[in-house]
């Protein structure tokens, strides 16, 4: 998928994977969540792209922001808490791929 092609619009319950990317500039995806699989909890709407705002530009086209849920034990090696503990985090659409998409596991 290229940067300009239309993206899947996710809905609550969709399984997603977080991309691993490390571009220069300012990104709002922490590395601890990169590469992990989770589930969409909310579609929060569209916002100016913070990665573009970080360079003083308009942030247009806007990017859709989602809240996604992950299992704590998937995030932290040796996690000692309950197996059902979760973490919710807000991620922009261009950091997510459908977990159903075979390319996501590459």
């Amino acid at each position: 998928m290229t940067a300009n092609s239309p993206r899947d619009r996710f809905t609550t319950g969709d399984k997603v994977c977080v991309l691993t990317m490390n571009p220069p500039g300012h990104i709002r995806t922490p590395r601890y969540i990169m590469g992990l699989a989770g589930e969409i909890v909310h579609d929060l709407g569209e916002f100016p792209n913070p990665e573009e705002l970080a360079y003083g530009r308009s942030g247009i086209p806007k990017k859709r922001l989602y809240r996604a849920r992950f299992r704590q034990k998937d995030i932290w090696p040796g996690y000692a808490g309950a197996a059902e503990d979760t973490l919710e985090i807000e991620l922009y659409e261009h950091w997510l791929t459908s977990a159903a998409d075979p390319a996501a596991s590459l």
Partner: protein
Amino acid sequence: MSEPAFKPHDIGGLPAGDIVTDEKDHALWEKRVDAIVMLLQKPERKLLRVDELRRSIESLGPKAYRDLGYYERWIFAVANVLLERGVITSEELGQGIADVMKRGEVLP
């Protein structure tokens, strides 16, 4: 080409030692830095966005990020954004720093 290192602020989940819970009173210059950032962000000026401030702070490099204090990072980052945007020139900034030092207001 090897993968570029992640930036020094991205420390979620890494060991960080004890959390300091002491109340801290800010120095006058720190309050001034805070005021400068708030004023630059005002809608009627729009000379700085918080996303730009973050980019600039996150681009200071690992050593500066580690060694500088919180508001030191802010003022270095603000200066960089204002230079990039052409709001100030490097000559004006250099002259301003020289003037302050001449007055003896060297930052602690």
